[in-house]
């Protein structure tokens, strides 16, 4: 059933709460508020408490989330969010802290931040970490600002940042925001950076290369050591987009591959809710030579005390109010402690195993453009189905009928009709089988069934094109 808008449910004069009679002298608003700020109408919906509770509860039931089913959204790592982390993040000692509290009264929180930074540095093979960036792209921006500050400090002018054609769109955006020109490097037939072409592009005008490893095809950049060598020899830096770190946890470290900077997506790899469920968090790790440029303050340890260190003359400054999204930091810290090093390694191993299991089950039914052992995700192409007029979008929509969130589609751009699938480690073999069977069934379904899907949702195909061309952003009677 279609849920009506909150404006359509309400009725004039309805209230959610009945307030007691006012027991202080009443003042007219006109006396207290300047005339230009007063308005005659305030067209807000008016509903009773049960109406509003039912409305939002019904909406929540229409939702498709990781708590209701497999959510194989490639590159987004929609793994299950353990509920114990929520419990810990809601402890009063943490929720009732104020960011202006003096250091001696929040030693526990500072210790948590200090240790989380240390753990992340260890996991990524970095020397120092800032927890401030609010999400992945913000981590990238912070990293690019640090790269810029680093070259400025050496009085070097470099103008270019190299980015593969399979990269997340945020990479060129972050580089461009810092004044760099984004230069595209093509992928080779194995889906990795074309090293021959890279060699031609790298010179002393290149500040950095931004790489995701494993890349967005879910493939490990096999030539990473050679790539690092090419870029470092020209004096450039290597930035690792850590969006796909889930595949490497406890097994391999970007820092050991030659990366100089790496952002972590706590909301992906470290299991905190995201995509409507909570804010992100994108800590940035750097190698020692770049540490002086990190944002202030850094959490440091002196003897047994934890302090906020603002004395960093080369710092790029603050990138976020206070200390980052602290609630997310708590959950990531809890996740790390509950798993330990062994558990973390199992996360990566199972994520990779699950993805390869699905590849095996699906590759006879969908075109697999890069047929290799993958890491935590893989990209199928709907090219075969397209010959029958069926698009990746239709396949994705039909999956909703089968109880699954659709995968990422039409990304990466280098794959035609891309379906990018990341099952994550938290799914059982039974769930993976059900998902594979749904996709296999869809592969053979007729165009008519697919074009009109989803059939079992409260609304079907929304006009996404009209929404983009002529957005209607507010309700009007």
């Amino acid at each position: 059933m279609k849920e009506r808008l909150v404006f359509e449910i309400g009725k004039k004069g309805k209230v959610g709460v009945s307030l007691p009679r006012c027991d202080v002298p009443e003042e007219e608003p006109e006396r207290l508020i300047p005339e230009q700020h007063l308005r005659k109408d305030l067209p807000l919906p008016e509903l009773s408490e049960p109406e509003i509770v039912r409305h939002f509860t019904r909406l929540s039931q229409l939702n498709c989330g990781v708590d209701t089913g497999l959510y194989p959204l490639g590159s987004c790592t929609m793994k299950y969010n353990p509920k114990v982390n929520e419990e810990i993040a809601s402890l009063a000692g943490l929720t009732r802290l104020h960011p202006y509290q003096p250091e001696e009264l929040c030693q526990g929180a500072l210790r948590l931040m200090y240790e989380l930074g240390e753990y992340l540095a260890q996991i990524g093979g970095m020397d120092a970490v800032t927890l401030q960036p609010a999400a992945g792209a913000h981590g990238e921006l912070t990293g690019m600002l640090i790269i810029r500050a680093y070259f400025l400090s050496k009085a070097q002018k470099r103008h270019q940042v190299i980015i593969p054609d399979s990269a997340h769109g945020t990479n060129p955006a972050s580089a461009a925001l810092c004044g760099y020109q984004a230069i595209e490097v093509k992928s080779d037939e194995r889906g990795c950076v074309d090293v021959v072409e890279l060699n031609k592009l790298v010179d002393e005008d290149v500040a950095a290369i931004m790489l995701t490893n494993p890349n967005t095809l879910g493939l490990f950049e096999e030539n990473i050591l050679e790539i690092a060598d090419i870029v470092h020899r020209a004096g450039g830096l290597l930035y690792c987009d850590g969006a796909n770190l889930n595949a490497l946890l406890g097994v391999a470290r970007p820092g050991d591959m030659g990366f100089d900077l790496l952002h972590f997506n706590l909301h992906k790899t470290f299991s905190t809710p995201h995509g409507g469920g909570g804010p992100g968090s994108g800590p940035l790790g750097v190698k020692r030579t770049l540490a002086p440029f990190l944002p202030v303050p850094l959490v440091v340890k002196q003897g047994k005390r934890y302090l906020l260190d603002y004395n960093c003359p080369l710092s790029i400054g603050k990138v976020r109010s206070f200390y980052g999204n602290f609630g997310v930091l708590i959950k990531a810290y809890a996740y790390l402690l509950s798993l330990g090093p062994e558990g973390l390694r199992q996360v990566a191993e199972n994520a990779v195993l699950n993805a390869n299991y699905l590849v095996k089950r699906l590759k006879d039914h969908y075109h697999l453009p890069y047929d290799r052992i993958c890491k935590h995700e893989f990209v199928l192409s709907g090219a075969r189905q397209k010959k029958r007029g069926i698009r990746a979008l239709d396949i994705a929509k039909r999956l909703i009928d089968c109880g699954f969130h659709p995968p990422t589609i039409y990304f990466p751009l280098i794959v035609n009709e891309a379906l990018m699938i990341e099952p994550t480690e938290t799914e059982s073999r039974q769930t993976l089988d059900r998902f594979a069977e749904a996709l296999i069934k869809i592969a053979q379904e007729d165009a008519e069934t697919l074009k009109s899907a989803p059939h079992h949702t409260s609304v079907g195909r929304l006009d996404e094109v009209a929404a983009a061309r002529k957005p209607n952003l507010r309700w009007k009677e």
Partner: protein
Amino acid sequence: MYPEGLKYAKTHEWLKVEDNEGKVGITYYAQDRLGDITFVELPQVGAELTKGKSFGTVESFKAVSEFYAPVSGKVIQVNKELRDNPELINQDPYGQGWILVVEIASPAEMEELLSPSDYEQWVKQQEEVG
């Protein structure tokens, strides 16, 4: 799908030459892969294009991509209709969906552009890669 009389770039733009002027648009294949186009960003009249370099962006409901110049030269006309009706590129990629007219700086550059049949081959290859 790929009319005669036009020259094609591997980056999926077409060029229609009249004297020293070239009208530029994107091919049927390009608009089909992009899907429904929702926004285009175009250069100003007078801007200089460099062959192979980006001269604008196109946004569809799937992705944001770039237009690449099939030849170098100065922009002498821009299709203003596209600002309000970017869907013209989907509906009529070789007609009303044209993008701009450029004053061709170096006719020799056109030698690298493909004929309709060669371009069709190129598209087939792209499709096979996935």
